């Protein structure tokens, strides 16, 4: 459980959480925002494994993509709520 919570928190403070949120704020379409966030999550897993697919941990990849999707969606919600025009 600690591994899972730790992985979630580290991803929220890394690229998927921060860049995912930022990219999500660039669109009003939640699906696009989620997809882009998920892509950022995949990218992060690739970067931290030194672009070696064999080195990517299943847990890390799953959680970075999930956090990316969630951050993208939240970013999209902020865009919809915060931009009036």
């Amino acid at each position: 459980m600690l591994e899972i919570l730790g992985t979630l928190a580290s991803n929220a403070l890394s690229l998927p959480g921060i860049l995912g949120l930022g990219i999500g704020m660039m669109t009003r379409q939640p699906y696009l925002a989620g997809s882009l966030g998920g892509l950022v999550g995949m990218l992060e897993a690739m970067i931290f494994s030194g672009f070696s697919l064999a080195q990517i941990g299943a847990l890390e990849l799953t959680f970075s993509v999930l956090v990316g999707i969630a951050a993208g969606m939240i970013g999209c919600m902020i865009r919809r709520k915060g931009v009036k025009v």
Partner: protein
Amino acid sequence: MNNRQDKRNRLSRLWDWFWSPSTQFSVGFTLISGFLIGILFWGGFHWTIEASNSEEFCVSCHSMETNLGEYRQTVHYYNHSGVRAVCSDCHVPKEWDHKMKAKAIAVKDVFYELIGSIDTREKYEARRIDMAKTVWKKMRATDSRECRNCHAFEYMDFTIQETRASSEHQRGIDEGITCIGCHQGVAHKLPPNWLEEYEKLKNPVSATRPGRLWVDALANAGTHQSYSIGSPAE
């Protein structure tokens, strides 16, 4: 009643103000101030993370006094060269993603400090083997990543090492044995039954309760393993 309603109104007005367009500030002003506040927050965040890596911070809890006393008697604290390894050098990874994960997991230590799970000598000794096993397991799964921040086979001069040390290090390279495979208890005392427990760690399937297997499998899958746990080499 009125007071509560007032407070709720204030909160709802604040919420509306937060999401309403700015009429006083230009786009440039908002961007520049957001950028500056961002730097301030990010700098503060990093400063806090680094502060929590200091030895003073680690041993500021009462529970860590036993740890500190033991560590002060080891070569990692006091040695001929004066180079030291503090708590975070061995327990906190240097890479950003692993570091953040370790910091998030370390929040549990605050909880355990608050409930006093190791605040007496007796409680500490009762839990010593569990704490040691947690670290051993992590070290084995990461190929002793934190040891390798300072120690590397590539830069070891085997000719100036003691005969036994150099032959064992050579065996380590040949058989893929990780640092913790031999160097248990380098900074803290070992519990009486440590060897038996370490052997169990090397064969996790026979030593693990069936219900925990999936948790362990998931946790191990999350680490960048460079060798398999319990390999015949060890």
